[in-house]
């Protein structure tokens, strides 16, 4: 008497957070992360201070050229607009209510230029390289009480727990829906919060058991 088991229901695909680096090996991929960060900071500062719509538009054009030159798929760069379109629509509405069209164009082009520049850097830089930069930036602040080693370890713990917590959050949402409580914020957050604290305690014990408690 063979028991036929029902095929398991496929789990919803969780949001891929760190699979978002563009494939390829263009020159932007090979540039060191620190250099890219410096370039991004300079560009953002110039665009923010100049506030010229023509300059902002030129930066957007330049970014698209750079994107093509580094062989990053343009779709990946522009998919940012799809993810934040609500924000952009709110900005546009506020501008049309409070400001004249010229100012509206200036504000929108400035925001788009900065966001797209940051997105291009994200697409070509692996997270671990950014953590190295984070650690290097903290090192000169050691006399002020910064602990680069501990901060980098906390950042690693954060990266590691994001997928776990994302799964837990989806699970809590489904449990709340099964109880008919999908509009109750408490039913969604309390399981997530309890799971987060338990996970932190496990991680803390695991670190202590390995003797990782005396970092600079």
């Amino acid at each position, binding site marked *: 008497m063979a028991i036929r088991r029902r095929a398991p229901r496929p789990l919803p695909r969780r949001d891929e957070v760190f699979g978002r680096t563009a494939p390829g090996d263009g020159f932007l991929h090979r540039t060191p992360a620190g250099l890219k960060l410096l370039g*991004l900071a300079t560009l953002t500062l110039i665009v923010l201070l100049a506030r010229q719509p023509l300059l902002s538009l030129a930066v957007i054009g330049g970014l698209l050229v750079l994107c093509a030159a580094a062989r990053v798929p343009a779709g990946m760069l522009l998919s940012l607009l799809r993810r934040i379109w609500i924000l952009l629509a709110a900005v546009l509405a506020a501008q049309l209510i409070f400001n004249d069209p010229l100012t509206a164009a200036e504000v929108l082009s400035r925001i788009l230029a900065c966001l797209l520049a940051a997105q291009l850097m994200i697409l070509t830089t692996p997270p671990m390289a950014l953590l190295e930069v984070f650690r290097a930036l903290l090192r000169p602040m050691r006399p002020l009480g910064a602990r680069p080693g501990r901060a980098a370890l906390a950042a690693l713990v954060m990266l590691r727990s*994001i997928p776990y917590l994302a799964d837990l959050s989806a699970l809590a949402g489904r449990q709340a829906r099964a109880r008919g409580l999908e509009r109750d*914020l408490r039913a969604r*957050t309390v399981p997530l919060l309890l799971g987060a604290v338990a996970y932190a305690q496990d991680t803390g014990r695991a670190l202590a058991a390995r003797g990782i*408690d005396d970092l600079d």
Partner: protein
Amino acid sequence: MVFNSRMTDTSPAPSRASGSQSPARGAARTLDLALIGVFAALIAVLAFAPPIPVGNAGVPITLQSLGVALAGLVLGPWRGFAAAGLYVTLGLLGLPILAGFSGGLGVLAGPSAGYLLAFPFTALLAGLGARAVVRRSRPRWWIPLLFLVALGASVLCTHVLGIAGMSVNLGVTLAEAFVMDIVFWPGDVIKSLAAAAAAALLHRAYPALLVRHDRQRRHSPAGRR
């Protein structure tokens, strides 16, 4: 328990008088570190969640600031500040962990720059209030008091800096930015209430989470930091 096994099974037990860190202190420090990292991740995960409809009216709200309030109310001032600060710093450095999977310094040009920069200070303020509430008042007053703390921190910090940021980045006056900010108020009240209820529950379930350091200092001989 971990420390006990460690001290009994190895022959030379680490001497406490030699000036090295005791195992219990080390475990407390790794727990702090793990809590900071995990709560920074919690803020990120809540920021990724799409806006959910809440209440009878079904107003859609985003949950990012709920994570910030929870970090302050649950972890206290310094660890809460560290968790929110880690989230904001790594987001600005370029990890795609801010709302809408964006990130990088370019966010500073956007309309939400002020809100984002305010997050660590909101957590600090909420943590200061929460520590006083949990130490001084009876547990049945925790939910209303923590609600006031969370709402106060959000109004004094998040909204003030958020309005200033919108005024600068969107080219509008402070009064106009204030009008735009009003949209967030109902959601803020709901989120503060949810954060207060969850934090009160958590402090009952884990009483050592917020007051442990204080108690340890009182029972240990003076001079050991």
